[in-house]
């Protein structure tokens, strides 16, 4: 890992934290929502397995987006000397 720099570590942090929240969100949402009962844009051909996986990837993506944005903005603040 010695060759990984600051950017790689930030990416790790972002992907890992969003992974954790995505796992929890997937569990919670699909405990109450049965993919077999829902239609997505009129398409009903997606299997439960696909919806679970796509749902997880979706939560992971949105979580990573939020974390990345927050980190970037906190970093910009830090460079101006205003933030933590």
């Amino acid at each position: 890992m010695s060759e990984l720099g600051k950017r790689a570590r930030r990416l790790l942090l972002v992907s890992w934290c969003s992974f954790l929240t995505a796992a929890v969100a997937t569990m919670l949402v699909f405990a109450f929502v049965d993919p077999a009962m829902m239609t997505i844009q009129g398409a009903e051909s997606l299997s439960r397995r696909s919806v679970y996986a796509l749902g997880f990837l979706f939560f992971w993506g949105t979580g990573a987006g939020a974390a990345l944005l927050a980190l970037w903005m906190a970093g910009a603040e830090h460079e101006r000397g205003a933030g933590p």
Partner: protein
Amino acid sequence: MNGPASAPATANYVAEDKIYPREVSGHFARLRSLAVWVLLGLFYVMPWTHLHGRHAVLFDLPARKFFVFGLVMWPQDFIYLTGLLVIAALSLFLFTALGGRLWCGYACPQTVWTEAFLWMERFTEGSRSEQIKLDRAPWSARKLLRKGAKQLLWIGFSLWTGVTFVGYFAPIESLLHGAASASLGPWETFWVLFYGGATYGNAGFLREQVCKYMCPYARFQSAMFDRDTMIVTYDAERGEPRGARRRGADARAAGLGACVDCTLCVQVCPTGIDIRKGLQYECIACAACIDVCDSVMDRMAYPRGLIRYTTQHALDHATTRVLRPRIFIYGALLLLLVGGFTLGLVRRVPLGLDVLRDRNALYRVLDDGRVENVYDLKLMNKTERTLRLVVTVSGAGQLATDPSPAVFTVAGGEVYSVPLRVRRPAYDPVGAEDIRLTIHAEGDERLQASSQARFIAPLQ
């Protein structure tokens, strides 16, 4: 404790040299080996274990059913999973307050898999010094062979881990069959590679960096610590001033403490810290430094325990109290939750009933002067056998079902949807009322579930 909060934010991102933890033997290393064998053994064996003719543990996501040691959990039983997670978290708090980072040192998957990967690394590349030499050496046939063998072992083990992980969600026999005949579904392939890749990356390369930079528990565990918590610590009072000496030399005459400054405690540390600098948040309490220091103390004929498990209070020559308010609070909460969880599980009824009012009409008045409401029932048979379920209705008015009696046969593990008509004399003074629909298994009144619904009648 030196938490990250007190360090500048950029300190989280210092580039580091690769850490080569030195192999260590001793009491705590044996304990960890035992933990690795037991925990990894359980993980790899469980998907193959059968109970009553089906997998002992199978989280069948496509069917939305979890099979756990003969119990069949449905999405409606989500509360049990939540309870289990809360119990796990509280146990972690209790054990941390008592014994420090026991979880990190012996039970965390990161520790356990890293240990297994280290074994493979030592098997192919040799001891710590041989590994350092090999890394510095130019590429040769021997280096290629050793590095190649390590990668082969690592990748094979990771893939097997990925297959095993997916084996918790799909029968592992059919998974292997699919993999052998190259007919594995796209999602199975994806998850096998995903989990295998994560194992390879975390245990092969990231290792202690996961604990230092990625683990949330490492950041907040110090909140559970107090001066009576067991920590791995160096006895500076006894050890300082440190210094090299000949064996058998009189340390006191030379003005030296017990530490011979051999730096073995630093070499064995998987996170690369020097325990002699005091308690640090990087320390995962693996106790490798205790084992190695004890072996040095034995060789020097000094008493063991220069580095040892102890408490801050004991180091300060104060009394250590095991029973303290936080232990009682964590303990009481845990007892309460475990009690509630067990009671809930014992009293869990493997039947379910959902009632939805028919949306087309509020009510219908029949020729015989009675009023009729229609409900859509979902009868859930969570047992493994076919049941005949009897639906009864109760309320303030003279209610009757149609058909009467309403008996439906529902196969084991099935959800049966059926419309049910409930009738009552129309001009009952009760008016609209809340009614209760109850199902019970024919011949077994204890198997019973009920649900409330609204019965609507015309105004007087």
